[in-house]
């Protein structure tokens, strides 16, 4: 017969003073684990939120970032009027030739500067990226030295709010609008008119082309046509795949997360063991009584393991709760791909919270295993005699 679960549960509650520190300890470990993983998830989410399945991204073969890619005007003209490219209501092809460059801007906290991506694009380019929505001010006017800045980026740098001006490349630019990129990679960008960008930064070529395929089959044809055309040393990929490959920045964060999880879980196992040994020690007589009542060794063993797991699960739940307030908080670091500031959010997904709970329960089970074995092996008579 198994011990009733309420027995374990009430045991955890009755000894709350002794168990509280362990629960809190495990909770903090789980909170750190969940938060660091939430950063990696946020980075990956921002990449996966970016592409539209109908769009094809075209960059120079061999380049790893739009800012180091070049597409010449001739190449743009060759591709522009292909039949496979969708057209808008006026019959114009949905092709956006973008210029992406980096500018160094002072941070708003006064701690130095960082590179920011500036994308020069046309109204077609904006139509191809419908997830980007204006939240204040207005869009930049073509032919003017005006920019719109991502709202999240505006908070991190000086001179990026509506009405502000900043100097770059010997010119003054005015911020006329702020936009929200719906947690996509565009949240890390400054947008302005394509031709203005080219003249301001003295760029003859475009950086990339974004085209809307007329249908999925046409998309495949565009990719193979570029692959086979010797005049075009370019690489075409679905936009979704292009951004999906841009998550290398998440790797060091994941390494950090795994290292922390390993080291902290070892510490947490020791703490859980200490608590459970103390719990077994102070309940020696109780365990003897249970044995006399007819509960078997393996029942006692299972009982203590369940108790450890329960203790850890409470800690795990607490850890997830502690981490939760940071969900959706935006943060930023340098992307190793684009060499510029990338803004992303802590994202605590249900799966991540579940992973945190599993992590906690595993710590609890490992920590209670040895004490439970000890409890189950107590000789009945000596256990009953102990004070």
């Amino acid at each position, binding site marked *: 017969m198994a011990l009733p679960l309420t027995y374990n549960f009430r045991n955890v509650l009755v000894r709350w*003073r*002794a168990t*509280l*520190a*362990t629960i*809190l*300890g495990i909770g*903090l470990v789980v*909170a*750190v684990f969940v938060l*660091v993983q939430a*950063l990696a998830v946020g980075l990956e989410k921002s990449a996966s939120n970016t592409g539209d399945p109908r769009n094809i991204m075209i960059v*120079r*073969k*061999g*380049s*790893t*970032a739009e*800012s*180091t890619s070049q597409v010449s005007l001739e190449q743009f003209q060759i591709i522009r009027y292909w039949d496979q490219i969708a057209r808008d209501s006026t019959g114009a092809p949905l092709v956006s030739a973008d210029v992406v*460059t*980096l*500018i*160094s801007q002072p941070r708003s906290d006064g*701690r*130095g*500067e*960082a*590179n920011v991506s500036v994308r020069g694009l046309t109204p077609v380019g904006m139509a191809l990226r419908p997830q980007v929505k204006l939240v204040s001010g207005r869009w930049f006017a073509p032919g003017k030295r005006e920019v719109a800045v991502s709202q999240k980026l505006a908070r991190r740098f000086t001179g990026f709010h509506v009405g502000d001006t900043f100097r*770059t*490349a*010997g010119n003054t630019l005015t911020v006329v609008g702020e936009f929200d990129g719906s947690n996509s990679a565009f949240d890390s960008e400054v947008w302005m008119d394509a031709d203005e960008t080219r003249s301001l*930064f*003295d760029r003859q070529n475009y950086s990339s082309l974004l085209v809307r395929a007329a249908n999925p089959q046409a998309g495949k044809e565009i990719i193979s046509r570029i692959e086979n055309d010797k005049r075009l*040393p370019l690489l075409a990929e679905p936009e979704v795949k292009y951004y999906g490959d841009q998550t*290398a920045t998440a*790797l060091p964060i994941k*390494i950090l997360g795994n*290292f*922390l999880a390993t*080291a*902290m879980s070892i*510490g947490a196992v*020791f*703490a859980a*063991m*200490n*608590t459970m*040994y*103390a719990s077994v*020690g*102070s309940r020696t007589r109780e365990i003897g009584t249970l044995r006399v009542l007819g509960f078997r060794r393996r029942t006692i063993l299972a009982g203590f393991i369940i108790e450890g797991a329960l203790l850890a699960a409470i800690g795990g739940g607490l850890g997830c709760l502690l981490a939760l307030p940071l969900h959706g908080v935006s*943060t*930023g*670091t*340098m992307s*190793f791909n684009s*060499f510029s*500031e990338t803004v992303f959010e802590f994202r605590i997904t249900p799966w991540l919270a579940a992973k945190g709970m599993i992590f906690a329960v595993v710590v609890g089970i490992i920590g209670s295993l040895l004490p439970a074995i000890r409890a189950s092996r107590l000789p009945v008579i000596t256990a009953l005699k102990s*004070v």
Partner: protein
Amino acid sequence: MTIPTFILKNALRNKRRALLSISSVAVSLFLLVTLQVALRELTIPPQSAGAELRVAVRNKISLTNPLPARQRGIIEKIPGVEAVTPFTWFGGKYKNEGGMSFAQFAMDADKLRSVFGEAKMDMDGYEKFNATKDACVLGKITADKYHLKVGDHITLDSTVYPGSLTFTIAGIYAGTPDDRNMLFRQDYLDESIGEPGYVGMWWLKVKSANDMAPVIKAVNAAFQNSAAEVRAESERNFQLGFISMLGNIKTLIASISTVVVFTLVLVTASTMSMAVRERFRELAILKALGFRRREMFAFILAESFGLAVTGAALGIGGAYCLYTFGDIGKLTAGIFVSFEVTPRIMGFAALVAAVLGIVSAVAPSLSVARMSVVNGLKTLD
């Protein structure tokens, strides 16, 4: 029985618990040291010899915008400048590896010794680098990693320029804080991409430390209001610029360290309370025998302090040995090349341990102080 043996016996009477407590303190302090070293490596990069005489000049817009090659003549004429070399990022990928595993820069072969003198190489290497257009010199770490030696050819696919280039290794250098970079000739790059007339950035060597500030000022002023305005700064400031780009990572690591310390205090304090609660009756007997409160406090303090310090010695010592004698490049997948556990960090971790030992003794001591002898003697467990 003397007082010290009494304390030692008490600390070790539950050997399992003592071991577990020491281990958890050791693991936590190991973690704390690791995080502090990582934070230091990220925020205070290693300084190379000769850095105080070097100036980095980049495009004012950002590091990724090129500079016109014609600027060289103007910079060379500035008083106090000893040598000028272009320094152009090639962004080459080696052997279809997923990412870039080492950096490559194009520069002037004859300026290597004057500008980056701390990179030590045999004379033969310098001569070959000067004589052969496709020559390159390679840092020792990279050469060892790929088992490359002088005379080998390597081909790199550039992520910045179209196509790929093949180089012949002229020499292998060592002696810089990060012996991973590959240096090759700017004229070879220019030739292969059709003489575009641009370079990535300039590196300058000034004649003396007194020339630093005037040279920086003069370089910045020389290109004011030109098509390519520049930002000249000392090597130190240039490095700090990179650190600023890392953004919130620093805050993240600092907050994790705080949580680790807090968890540590919590768990250790709870262990101490357990140890004291277990022997309430004994402590009551000691009280009845006439021991005073401060003596009881001293017993508990000595025990908790001893546990914390033993754990600290293991954790800090372990971290020191691992990071001093281990291969840090391999351990961190190439993110860090040096991972120096400084005396300052060890001192900080030891201080945390000492405070921990004291704080953990406070709560149990208070409950012992408050307990009445009669109730204490009645306690069963």
